[in-house]
């Protein structure tokens, strides 16, 4: 199994990559064969993530955003079919119900990349609010996870007992120096 993450731009640093690996190695219970970091930055935005569907066309793949906190043994997240999060159990759908903070697939799903690449200019103009809207509008075949990853905004002061991972989303500042809460115990010391 391959674990994948992306680091590009100024928002995330080597610390965030090391931190994700630290949480996976120490709390998730995941066993993996390789830990892959995509750093190529052709688009200077979230569309960079789509490169993983071109690059990894075999085996089991499990992608994580860098702004998550993993604090316990994860449920089985690897999937045969292309699968991502549906957030509508904890928020309004807004412009997309989907969230690609966690994505899994087995084998070749390069159609996702190809769909983007074929109409790249149009896609870049059309989906200015993120790749999650692109998935929702342009990709016909996907599955979604059962509720596995709530937002930390609803669990700022106490970790969610029924889950083992939270997305930080807009609250990624919680990873900066100076912030301390239950989540800090799972991060690498700054």
């Amino acid at each position: 199994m391959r674990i994948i993450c992306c680091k590009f731009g100024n928002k995330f640093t080597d610390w965030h990559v090391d931190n994700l690996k630290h949480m996976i190695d120490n709390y998730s219970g995941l066993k993996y064969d390789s830990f892959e970091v995509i750093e190529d930055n052709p688009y200077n935005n979230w569309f960079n993530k789509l490169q993983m569907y071109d690059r990894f066309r075999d085996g089991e793949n499990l992608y994580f955003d860098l702004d998550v906190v993993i604090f316990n043994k994860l449920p089985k997240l690897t999937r045969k079919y292309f699968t991502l999060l549906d957030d509508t159990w904890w928020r309004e759908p807004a412009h997309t119900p989907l969230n690609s903070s966690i994505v899994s697939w087995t084998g070749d799903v390069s159609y996702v990349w190809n769909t983007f690449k074929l109409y790249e200019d149009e896609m870049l103009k059309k989906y200015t609010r993120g790749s999650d809207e692109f998935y929702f509008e342009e990709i016909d075949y996907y599955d979604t996870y059962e509720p596995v990853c709530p937002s930390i905004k609803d669990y700022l002061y106490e970790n969610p007992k029924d889950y083992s991972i939270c997305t930080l989303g807009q609250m990624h500042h919680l990873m900066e120096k100076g912030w301390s809460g239950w989540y800090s115990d799972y991060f690498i010391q700054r």
Partner: protein
Amino acid sequence: MIKICTVFFEGKYSPDYISKFYDSLKRNTTVPFEFVCLSDTDVKADLVLPYNKHSNIKLHWHKLKFFSPQFAYQKPGDEIIVMDIDQVITNNIDDLINYPVKDNEFISYHTWWPRNIKVNGGFYKFKSGDFDYIWNDFSLNPEYWQTHYYENGDVHYKYYGEQNYVDWKLFEKNITITKVPGEWLGKYTDNRKDMIEMNKLYSKLFNTDYMILDNVNEKIKIVHLNGATNNKIWNIQ
């Protein structure tokens, strides 16, 4: 523990303003405190926290982080004071720093000159965590709030309006704002005409001498500079 919290970013002021402010606080109060500065450069403070230039949080809006009990290593029961750095301390401020604060009470300067909001961002005092929603709600949609008051015409510069947002959140939650005595606060601007009007108003409201002529009125503990940077008042500090 009393934490005095500030934000500094390079631009209008240089790091030595923080040093002056810190030294001046130490000199003018006997009350123990920890001086915290969220800064984009190394400054003189008991605790310096990084101002993340790559964050979507702009300018003074970083001040709102101090409303979260999870920021700056706050502990339950800590008294949090958030201050602007463009202030000159002209007298002993024990009564200001030690101003008693109850649970769920928000203390700010009494802004005695005409103004359309109740809080004054120069000074907030509250108990750690009592107003966590000010930061928590803001952090869910900073892009909206950071331009809202500019687009609404309430402020004249883009990304201004942090005080307006705090004012709104307190109004929304029906929080009464406690004001420290107005005569403790002076205001200084580089506009001579404005200063004359302020001097007259201060004198009338508090039945005393003018606010600032050759010297600062002895009732004043601290002078808030509204954009003034190059003037003799800095030397008092």
